[in-house]
């Protein structure tokens, strides 16, 4: 506000106004005085002094002439004389009463005249009022008196008139002075008026100029706001719209006329946010706290005239206008960017999901392919043993190697997809480096020997025990070694491992595989760790490989937190190195032996209610045994061959309890438990894990998946009864049972229990099925030597089945093999093949003897 510009004329104007008021006041006073003077002139309170004095003189002359006329006659009539006297008398009355002269301030001047007239009348009146005779006699004296009076009257009149004239002059001068004052005051007032008019004109012109300028600025601003790309809404403190530009019209669908004067809450704020808006406005009016104002860009939900809600980005500023606080909001419809962003996110999620699905598909497919492949391999094995025709034998060997090659590929793809999908579970258990590496070298030695290549193991003795996934580490080293052997002919391959202590129970494993082979071109060195890279296709054909070995090694190394790399000189050889941080373990502390848990006495199950049970178990032998045991305990049992079927049945029917195997094809027990718990009639049923796993962390995992209890294979009928008793009284959790330590071929109490549970015929049937199944499984195990994972699963299955029928020694053998495979001892199956065959034969003979007996 340019106050200095306005205050000067305003001050001037105030002064002028003050002066004018004073002038008007003065003029009023003067006017009153003039009016009084003028009234004196207008309302002449006196008769003309000249006229009266002249009339007095005239009447006296007429009296004199009447008196002289009477004196000239002998017997004169006296009426005329008396009338003239009376007239003169009445005229003198005006002078003598003094009223008239008193009003003219001529009292003093008239006094000599009055005295003279009084004297005359005192003398003459008795004569006039007397008898005619005495009047006639006095006539001469009367004439003389009147003549004398006439002389005196004249001079006295003249003197009075002179005095009157002087006084009249004074009065006129006074009036003139007053009029001059009035004129002067009026002139001053006029000047003031002119000045005031000037000041008003000046202010008016200034105001006009300011108005014009304001209009110019305002119209420029209006145009700017109107054509702005962003919506602009101006609102007052009461939330009513003061302005609404074209962009806002486009965004909200309201015309400017519709919007102006409306409350924002009714116009563009969705009904469900109206309360919050009102609260915000109220808070601001009360406390002045403007949360949204000047807070930068904010994203809100607004509503169009059509009722459509959309995301809006806006920034709000405030300003104090002439009518109080106003708010200016700049708004941008961001529904399109938001929609784009959403579409982009959806596309990304879809792509990720597709990628995940692909990976999952690969994993599942690989897994699914291995099972029939194992069948193929087993079948070829059997055929190979019986083949006599050499030409057939050649084709069978070809088929055998092809099938094994295919199995390796499938395993490779499975590994890669597992790592990619993040499903790779790395075990963490203590192991010896030296024997593990030695066994890898031993396996490849015959292959290398065929190519006249020597393999050396350069490793120090007394290496500490390390923790980690020995299986995966072995997989990497095996890969590097087989590559080295593959590309070296008549040379040397050296596996070197050094463990650098890093302090605080940590060490860095520095491992290298050096060969004197053909080497790798520098430009290829970078690519060899990428997927599906085969440098020399010709090798790929003769010595088949997917080209996935090194990529898998890289992934596994990285998953374990290590680094892998290669150096090479074409023609001279290559050196592949691996650096892996590994915790070291104190050799002095042997792993603690599992404590023997206290066994509770099995209760007599006769009083227990009949339970409706579901057995989910993939192994047919186990399924039969459990069904028979449950029947013996007086319960009803439904059967499912895998997790998927188990889920289907559990959802369709409410079971009191579900006995769930953990490792199953198609769907494992953990997944099935989760699905059963998710929905269906049995979602609240008791789910009991049936497993050969005895590690505490595993048990914990089962409970986490929603399982209530755990039965450890091989289970006794007592264990089963006790666990099922908890179904009717679930508050008594049963500790997981542990296998009974024994070293007999058969577990006598278990056999007895089975015989009681199944009866002689049931026992025979069960044993026959076990022998059938196990024969097939043993064949598969033999052909699965190159796939530790597969071997491990088969050992698991064999151990479980053996436990079920009480083949104690066989059970312990395969359980031990499974543990070794789990710990990464991949060659254990091959190494223990003889033992396996012998124990299997023993168990089969013993069981066969049982049923024949």
């Amino acid at each position, binding site marked *: 506000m340019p106050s200095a510009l306005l205050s000067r004329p305003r001050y001037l104007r105030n002064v002028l106004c003050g002066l004018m008021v004073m002038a008007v006041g003065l003029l009023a006073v003067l006017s009153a005085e003039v009016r009084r003077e003028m009234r004196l002139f*207008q309302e002449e309170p006196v008769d003309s002094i000249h006229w009266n004095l002249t009339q007095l003189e005239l009447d006296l002359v*007429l009296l004199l002439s009447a008196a002289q006329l009477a004196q000239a006659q002998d017997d004169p009539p006296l009426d005329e004389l008396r*009338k003239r006297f*009376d*007239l003169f008398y009445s005229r003198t009355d005006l002078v003598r009463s003094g009223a008239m002269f008193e009003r003219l301030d001529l009292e003093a001047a008239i006094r000599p005249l009055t005295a003279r007239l009084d004297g005359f009348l005192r003398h003459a009146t008795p004569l006039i009022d007397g008898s005619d005779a005495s009047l006639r006699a006095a006539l001469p004296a009367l004439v003389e008196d009147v003549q004398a009076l006439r002389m005196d009257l004249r001079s006295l009149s003249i003197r009075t008139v002179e005095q009157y004239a002087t006084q009249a002059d004074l009065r006129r001068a006074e009036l003139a002075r007053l009029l001059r004052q009035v004129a002067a005051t009026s002139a001053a007032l006029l000047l003031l008026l002119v000045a005031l008019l000037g000041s008003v004109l000046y202010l008016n012109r200034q105001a006009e100029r300011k108005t014009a300028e304001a209009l110019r600025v305002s119209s420029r601003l209006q145009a700017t706001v109107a054509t702005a790309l962003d919506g602009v809404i101006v609102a007052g403190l009461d939330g009513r719209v003061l302005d609404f530009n074209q962009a806002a019209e486009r965004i909200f669908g309201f015309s400017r006329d519709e919007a102006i004067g409306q409350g924002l809450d009714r116009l563009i704020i969705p009904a469900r946010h109206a309360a919050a808006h009102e609260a915000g406005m109220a808070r601001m009016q009360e406390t002045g706290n403007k949360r949204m104002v000047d807070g930068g860009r904010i994203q809100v939900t607004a509503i169009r005239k059509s009722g459509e809600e959309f995301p809006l980005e806006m920034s709000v500023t405030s300003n104090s206008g002439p009518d109080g606080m106003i708010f200016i909001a700049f708004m941008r419809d961001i529904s399109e960017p938001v929609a784009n962003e959403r579409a982009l996110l959806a596309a990304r999620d879809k792509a990720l999901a597709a990628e995940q699905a692909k990976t999952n598909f690969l994993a599942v497919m690989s897994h699914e392919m291995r099972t029939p492949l194992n069948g193929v391999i087993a079948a070829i094995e059997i055929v190979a043993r019986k083949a006599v025709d050499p030409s057939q034998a050649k084709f069978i060997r070809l088929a055998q190697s092809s099938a094994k090659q295919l199995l390796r590929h499938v395993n490779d793809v499975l590994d890669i997809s597992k790592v990619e999908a993040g499903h790779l579970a790395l075990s963490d258990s203590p192991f010896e480096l030296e024997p593990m590496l030695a066994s890898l070298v031993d396996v490849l030695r015959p292959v290398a020997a065929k190519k006249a290549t020597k393999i050396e193991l350069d490793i120090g003795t007394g290496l500490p025990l390390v923790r980690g996934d020995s299986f995966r580490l072995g997989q990497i080293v095996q890969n590097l070694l087989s590559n080295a052997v593959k590309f070296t002919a008549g040379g040397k391959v050296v596996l070197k491992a050094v463990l650098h202590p890093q302090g605080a129970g940590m060490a860095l494993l520095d491992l290298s595989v050096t060969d004197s082979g053909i080497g790798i071109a520098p430009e290829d060195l970078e690519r060899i760790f990428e997927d599906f890279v085969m440098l020399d296709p010709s090798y790929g054909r003769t010595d088949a490989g997917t080209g996935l070995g090194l990529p898998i090694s890289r992934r596994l190394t990285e998953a374990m937190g290590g680094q892998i790399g290669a150096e090479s000189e074409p023609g001279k050889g290559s050196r592949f190195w691996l650096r892996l941080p590994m915790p070291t373990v104190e050799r002095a502390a042997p792993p603690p032996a599992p404590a023997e848990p206290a066994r509770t006495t099995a209760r007599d199950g006769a009083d227990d209610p009949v339970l409706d049970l579901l057995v989910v178990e993939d192994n047919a032998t186990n399924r039969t045994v459990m069904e028979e045991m449950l029947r013996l305990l007086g319960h009803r049992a439904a059967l499912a061959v895998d997790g998927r079927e188990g889920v289907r049945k559990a959802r369709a029917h409410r079971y009191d309890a579900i006995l769930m195997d953990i490792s199953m094809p198609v769907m494992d027990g953990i997944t099935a438990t989760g699905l059963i718990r998710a929905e269906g009639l049995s979602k609240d049923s008791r789910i009991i894990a049936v497993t050969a796993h005895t590690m505490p962390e595993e048990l914990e995992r089962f409970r986490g998946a929603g399982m209530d209890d755990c039965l450890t294979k091989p289970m006794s009928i007592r264990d089963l009864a006790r666990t099922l008793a908890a179904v009717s009284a679930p508050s008594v959790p049963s500790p997981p049972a542990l296998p009974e330590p024994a070293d007999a071929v058969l577990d006598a109490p278990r056999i007895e229990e089975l015989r009681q549970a199944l009866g002689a015929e049931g026992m025979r049937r069960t044993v026959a099925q076990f022998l059938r199944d196990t024969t097939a499984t043993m064949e598969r195990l033999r052909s699965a030597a190159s796939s530790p994972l597969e071997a491990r699963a088969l050992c698991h299955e064999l151990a479980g089945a053996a436990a079920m029928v009480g083949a104690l020694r066989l059970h312990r053998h395969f359980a031990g093999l499974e543990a070794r495979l789990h710990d990464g001892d991949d060659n254990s199956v091959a190494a223990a093949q003889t033992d396996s065959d012998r124990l299997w034969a023993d168990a089969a003979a013993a069981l066969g003897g049982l049923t024949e007996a």
Partner: protein
Amino acid sequence: MNSLRRSGAALMVAAALFPAAAARADSLPAPQGEVILTVSGAITNTNDDGVARLDMALLDGLPRNSFATSTIWTEGVDTYEGVLLTDLLDALGATGTNVLAKALNDYEITFPVADVTDEGPLLAYRTNGKPMSIREKGPIWMIFPYDDVEAFRTEQTYARSIWQLDRIVVKP
């Protein structure tokens, strides 16, 4: 209203005083005492050859009015009693437009009949209840209520305030 009623009253009084006014030319009774006012000119009610000669008795028979006022020629406030000129002109059936009034000393003044109203002038023949001698501006003083009506306090009205009045001529 006031003047109409007053005029109506004046006519009724005139009709009572002068019964055959409408029938004969000399409809006014002849004066019995000394004639103190002679009215001539455009009048219809006369008593001597187109002239109305009025003595004190005839004047007394006309509607009487009075008021108190001061004058510029006298001291103090006096009460003046007499007949309003308008009543006199009505009673005499005056039809003229101007009035000429004349005094004993032959002073005369002419003024329009339109100026003659119910407020004045009054042809006063008694001051404070007493008849006026020539020495006391009698026998008739045409006077105005100067104190009550500001408009009468002018030089023109003072000039019309004729005393020792003895003749009136109503001019057509």
